[in-house]
C-alpha cells in the first residue's frame, strides 16, 4: 500500500503511520533497526529503496529515505508511506525535501526514528566528506558509504581514511568479502608457512583493490604491493589477482572472467570458483548484519598504501 502525503509535516507522517498500523492490523512489529537512506531525489533514490527492500527480507526495518530535491524553492516536505507488498518486509517512508529544508535532514528524522532501535545511515551516492560529522550521520551508530559512485573511488577512499570514525564502513569493503574468505580458507590448508610477500593486482582506480591491499598488509607481517592491471571481464569487479608467496609455493586467486576465478595452490590441482561481483543488495544485507564498529575495516584502511590524493581537504562542502 502506498499513501501519499503532499506538503506535509513530520507529525502528520507519524499520525498516519499509527493510523495505518491500527487499520491494517499489526504491520509494524519486529522491526530491528531504522535505516536512513540519504540521496538525491530521482532514479538513484528508487534504486536504493529497492536494494533496501530486498535487504529487509533479512533485516525487517523502518526505512527513511531522505530525498533531497531542488534547493532553490520554498521549504516543503512531501512524504510517501509504503507498507506491505510495496515495501518488502519493511516500512518505507520517503521524505522529499525542497528548499532550505533539504539541508535539515538531521532534524526531520528525529521524530520518525524507531524507539530504542539501532540507526544505520546509508549514502548510496555522494557521501559527505566526514560521515560522522554530518547532521544525519551523527545520529546513526553505523554509517555506510559507497565510494564506487565517486569519480575517483580510490581518492574518495583516501579521504574516507582521513576522516574515519568508528562505525564508518564502505560498500567497497563488503564487495571483497568473498575474496577475503577464499584467501583465508586457502591459508587454512597446509603447508602452514608464513607469507613472505603478497601482491594485489587490480584497476588503478579501484578502491576495493586498495582495501584488499590494506587488509593483507595489516594482517600479514610482510611487504604487500599494489599493482595496476586491467581486469578481464569488465563487469566482474575491479580486482584481477591476489598472490600470497610462501617458501613452499604461492597461493594465487586470479579472476578469469566476469563470473569466475581460479585458485592455484602448490601441489594441488587448479580449482575454478564462482566469483561474481556482489550486488548492492547483498552488500547492504551484510552491512546490516553487524552493527558494531568494524575494527578490521579500520585496520585495513589504516594500512592502505598511501597515495597522493591531491588536496587533503575538500574546500567546499559536498553535501549537507
Amino acid at each position: 500500500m502506498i499513501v501519499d502525503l503532499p506538503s506535509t509535516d513530520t507529525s502528520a507522517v507519524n499520525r498516519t503511520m499509527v493510523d495505518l498500523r491500527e487499520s491494517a492490523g499489526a504491520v509494524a512489529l519486529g522491526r530491528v533497526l531504522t535505516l536512513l537512506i540519504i540521496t538525491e531525489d530521482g532514479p538513484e533514490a528508487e534504486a536504493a529503496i529497492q536494494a533496501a527492500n530486498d535487504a529487509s527480507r533479512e533485516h525487517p526495518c523502518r526505512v527513511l529515505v531522505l530525498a533531497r530535491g531542488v534547493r532553490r524553492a520554498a521549504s516543503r516536505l512531501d512524504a510517501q508511506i509504503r507498507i506491505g507488498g510495496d515495501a518488502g518486509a519493511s516500512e518505507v517512508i520517503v521524505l522529499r525535501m525542497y528548499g532550505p529544508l533539504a539541508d535539515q535532514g538531521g532534524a526531520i528524522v528525529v521524530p520518525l526514528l524507531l524507539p530504542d532501535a539501532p540507526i544505520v545511515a546509508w549514502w548510496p551516492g555522494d557521501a559527505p566528506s566526514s560521515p560522522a560529522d554530518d547532521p544525519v550521520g551523527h545520529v546513526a551508530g553505523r554509517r555506510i558509504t559507497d565510494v564506487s559512485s565517486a569519480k575517483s573511488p580510490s581518492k574518495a577512499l583516501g579521504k574516507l581514511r582521513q576522516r574515519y570514525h568508528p562505525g564508518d564502513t564502505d560498500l567497497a569493503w563488503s564487495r571483497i568479502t568473498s575474496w577475503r574468505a577464499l584467501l583465508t580458507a586457502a591459508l587454512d590448508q597446509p603447508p602452514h608457512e608464513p607469507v613472505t610477500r603478497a601482491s594485489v593486482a587490480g584497476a588503478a582506480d579501484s578502491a576495493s583493490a586498495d582495501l584488499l591491499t590494506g587488509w593483507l598488509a595489516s594482517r600479514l607481517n610482510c611487504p604487500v604491493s599494489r599493482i595496476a592491471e586491467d581486469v578481464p571481464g569488465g563487469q566482474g569487479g575491479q580486482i584481477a589477482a591476489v598472490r600470497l608467496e610462501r617458501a613452499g609455493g604461492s597461493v594465487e586467486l586470479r579472476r578469469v572472467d566476469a563470473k569466475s576465478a581460479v585458485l592455484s595452490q602448490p601441489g594441488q590441482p587448479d580449482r575454478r570458483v564462482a566469483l561474481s561481483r556482489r550486488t548492492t543488495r547483498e552488500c547492504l544485507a551484510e552491512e546490516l548484519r553487524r552493527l558494531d564498529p568494524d575494527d578490521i575495516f579500520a585496520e585495513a584502511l589504516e594500512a592502505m598504501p598511501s597515495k597522493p590524493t591531491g588536496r587533503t581537504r575538500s574546500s567546499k562542502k559536498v553535501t549537507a
Partner: protein
Amino acid sequence: MTRRSGTAVHDDWINPLRDARDKRLPRIAGPSGLVLFGVTGDLARKKLMPAIYDLANRGLLPPGFALVGFARRDWEDEDFAEVVHDAVRSHSRTPFRQEVWDRLAEGLRFVQGTFDDDESFDRLATCVAELDAERGTNGNHAFYLSIPPSAFPTVCKQLSRSGLADDEGDVWRRVVIEKPFGHDLHSAQELNEIVNDVFPEDAVFRIDHYLGKETVQNLLALRFANELFEPIWNAHHVDHVQITMAEDIGVGGRAGYYDGIGAARDVIQNHLLQLLALTAMEEPVSFSPDDLREEKIKVLSAVKLAEPLDETTARGQYTAGWQGSTEVKGLQQEEGFPTDSVTETYAAITCEVNTRRWAGVPFYLRTGKRLGRRVTEIAVVFKRAPHLPFDQTMTEELGQNALVVRVQPDEGVTLRFGSKVPGSGMEVRDVTMDFGYGTAFTEASPEAYERLLLDVLLGEPSLFPTNTEVEMSWRILDPVIEKWHREGSPDRYAAGTWGPPSADVLLERTGRTWRRP
C-alpha cells in the same frame, strides 16, 4: 576449540588472516567431497541437493567441491547431473546462477552399483581417489547414508572393506546418518556398534534436522542471553510445559517405513526429546560442542516417564475424516497398511524432569499425523498469580501466562498475558504479544539441512546428537512403547482433529488442557 576441517590438530598454526573480530568472514569448508547414498529418495531431491547448491551459491563450499551419487540406476554422470539440476531448479531457496551451477556441475559424479557388490564399492573408491587428484578434494569425504537403516551394516562394511573409511594422516572421513536410530534401546545400541565399528564416534553425524532450525538455536539465545526469562524458568513459576509437533499429512505411501514404527518412535524419540532437553537443560558453561552436549546428557539422564503410564500417556490412530477442506482416508485404508494395523499415528506422553529446577513440573509431549494443522511449538505455561486483587468476575477470562516458541511454521515467540479490556469496568482478559523475526520470509537465513551439511564438512558437531543421547532417549521411551505393544489396538480419532479423547482426558486429570496451537 573445535576441530577445523583439514587443519591438522597437532600443529599450532594460526592463520594470520583470521581474527575473531572479523565477523564478516564466513566459514568456508576445507577441500572436501560428499558421497550420497540414496540419491533417488525424496529427501535427497527435495532437501539435500538444493541445500548443496544453496551452500555453493552462498560461497560456503570449498572450490573444487565434489558430489558423488551412488545408486542402482543405470546412469552416467550427465544423467545424475540432470537429476541434481532439476532438484536444484525446483527446490533451492537462493536464486539460480549459472556460474555457480557450472562450477558445482564440474564436480558431480555417479557410481552405479548395489550395496552388496564389492566391485561397485571398488569403483566408488577409484572415483573418490580420482576426485582427490582432479578436483583436489584432498582425501576428505563425507558419506551421507540417506538409505534404510537395514542397509547400514552392509554399506558400513563395504566402506570399511574398500578402504573408503580410512582416515590416515590429515584427511578425514565422516558418515552422516538419518533417523530412525534404531527402534528401541537394544537395536540402537546394535546400530551404534555397527557404525562405530567403522567410524569413530567423532566422525559420526546423526542428523536431527530440527536442531538445524534457526528457531531451535534461537531458544538458546532466548534463554541464556536474556535476563527476562531465566529467573522464572523453573518449578516456582512454571506450571507445565507442552511440546507439540503436529502434522497435517498422513502416512500414505510410507507404509514400508511407518507401519509398526509409529509416532512415538518416529518423532518423540528424536525431535521432541531433543527439544525437551534444550528447554529444560541448565546453562552450559560455554557453547562449545562438548559443553552443550554435556548439559543435554545431564538433563536427559534426569528425565523419566511419569507413572502410572495408564494415566499419563495416550495414543491414537486416525480414521477417515475431513482434513480441513479435503476428505482423507483413515490409516487402515491407506495403501500398504494392513486393515488391522495397530500402528499409532498419535502419541502423547508425560515426562518428569527429576531436578530441583523442574521438580513437580510435567512436560507433556505430543505428536501426530493428520492433526488440525501443521505446527511445531514449545509452550511454557506459567502458574497463576498467587493472589489476584480483583473480584472473581473481573478475571473470569484470564488464563495462565504462557511463553510459546513457535518452531515452524511462522517462526517466532508468542507471549500471552492478561490485560484490561477497554471500557469503564475492570475486566482482565488474555492477550498475546507476538514476535515474528520475519524468518518466514528471510530467504537469507539458511535452511536446516544447509546448516547441518556445512557443519558436517567443517567437522562442527554441536547440532548433532551423540550416541549417548540417542540411547538415553530410547531408555526414556522404551517402557511406554513396550506397554503399547502389549495392549494392541490404539484409540481412534478422526483425521483433521487434535487427537483422541483419551489425550484430552490425560491432561484433564490434572486440571489442565492442551493448548490449541
